[in-house]
């Protein structure tokens, strides 16, 4: 489904991260994503952090433009795309950096979630107050400005019914070494073009992240040696992760 929406609010979450709210809610499962279109600038994948909003970290020209939008500006949405999370019991939601944003809708739709959040500084720990109202929150920051000083993996393992991990791929690899593969789900990012399973661009060991994922069970990663190792760039050339 394509539609265009208007920005109704641009909320600064941190020096690098903004949440853009639209004038319309999108029916979407947690873990699914949208292709966000700015005419002449591009179309890139983002996960809804609100039924009517995305939380965007500036990473380049497109996200610079996106986070600079003002109320009244129009953007295009295509989606929802991909397969989200299965129903998770008593999940620990483990988020690093802007990956935390991708866990927000999942948190709202989960029963008794626990939160394990990590970032470089306190400013990267999104929705801290809100998450505290939903369940226990543990935080690790590299500079110690919030929670424990250190890496998110320092907070693991924790006891939970299931685990959802979203963050930089190297962080996810580290988490995976201490989490049970059958009850843990990882959100994989790959460069996306078509986002509907045609072009093969988003392959991770042959699975197309846009349709087979972006959420993968840990057990599946067992057979995906490219996870944490390499991905295809825009031309198809392999690049290291």
């Amino acid at each position: 489904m394509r539609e265009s929406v208007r920005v109704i609010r641009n909320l600064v979450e941190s020096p690098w991260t903004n949440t853009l709210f639209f004038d319309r809610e999108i029916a979407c499962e947690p873990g699914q994503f949208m292709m966000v279109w700015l005419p002449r600038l591009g179309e890139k994948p983002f996960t809804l952090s609100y039924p009517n909003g995305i939380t965007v970290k500036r990473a380049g020209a497109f996200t610079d433009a996106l986070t600079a939008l003002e109320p009244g500006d129009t953007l295009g949405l295509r989606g929802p795309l991909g397969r989200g999370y299965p129903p998770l019991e008593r999940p620990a939601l483990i988020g690093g950096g802007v990956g935390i944003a991708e866990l927000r809708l999942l948190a709202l739709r989960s029963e008794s979630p626990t939160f394990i959040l990590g970032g470089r500084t306190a400013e990267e720990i999104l929705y801290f107050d809100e998450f505290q109202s939903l369940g226990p929150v543990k935080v690790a920051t590299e500079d110690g400005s919030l929670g424990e000083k250190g890496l998110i993996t320092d907070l693991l393992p924790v006891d939970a019914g299931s685990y959802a991990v979203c963050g930089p791929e190297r962080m996810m690899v580290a988490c995976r070494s201490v989490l049970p593969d059958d009850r843990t789900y990882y959100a994989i990012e790959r460069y996306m073009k078509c986002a509907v399973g045609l072009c093969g661009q988003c392959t991770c060991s042959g699975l197309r992240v846009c349709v087979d994922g972006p959420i993968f069970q840990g057990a599946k990663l067992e057979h995906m040696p490219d996870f944490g190792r390499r991905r295809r760039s825009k031309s198809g050339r392999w690049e290291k992760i």
Partner: protein
Amino acid sequence: MTALPEISPPLINASGILSYPEVFRAFEASGAALGGYVTKSVGPAEKMGNENPVVVCPEVEGQPLLNSLALPTQSPEDWETDLAETRLENARLIVSIYGGDSAEFGEVAARMSPFADIIEVNLGCPNKVPGEVTLMESIGQRPDLSGEVIGRVRGATKKPVIAKLSPNSDYLAVAAACMDAGADGLGCGNTLGPGLAIDTGTGKAILAGVTGGISGPALKPVNLRMTYECYARFGCPIIGYGGIESWEDAVEYALAGACLLGIGTAFLGKSTSEAAGLTRRIWEGVQAYLGGAPFSELVGRAHREPAPESARA
């Protein structure tokens, strides 16, 4: 003409769809009923292709898909590494190639030949990066240039060579030149148009490349006609591409003259297991239609005799 190797089931993916050898392996592992896999078109040097958006998806099933990927490719060297690393288990590998002129086509063909069971020559992609100066568009329009390209490719490989035609051309003339130059068969065909889509919300063309080639059900009648006419004229092996989504579509192409059937847009939105399931359903439907007869009995049958008895079982 070199005969094509046996490809069974006679179903393959279309070039630019699935694209990479590791994806083909994942499909094989999922039990897809594809007897062969086609790489995305390999070009003479690394190229990024168009910026996103590169697709306009149908809002309703049956509507056209537009794409303007414009042939992104890693370098032939990287393709060599890739194809050496990931070999198919059982299926055949078809390497699709393109170039900016006949020399480039020849070079790419020579490099890819060791990995390929068939070389498919992409003569007619209607997409390009805006402003790009490329001969690709005109090659597929011009019998002389197409013949020259096939001649070079013919010289560069002993593997069977398929000339994949553009529906946006005088394709019978182009095909004649290709067959004369030594092609072993025809691909019928590439995407149509190109077409345009405008977003009413922003009032702007959607694709970064402005226009994009049309595929899916909208393309089927055109490429089916191409298949029918090429079979009548050349009686050569033909790969049918365009809007194949069901066993009926596959049977139509076979009756028109296709001995291999390529599936592209029908994989839209499908996970690997869903896509593999689709290929199995198509192949089971074709087999039920055949009622035990070999697939070869269907090929070109619309030109000869009525449907087999089993057709209406």
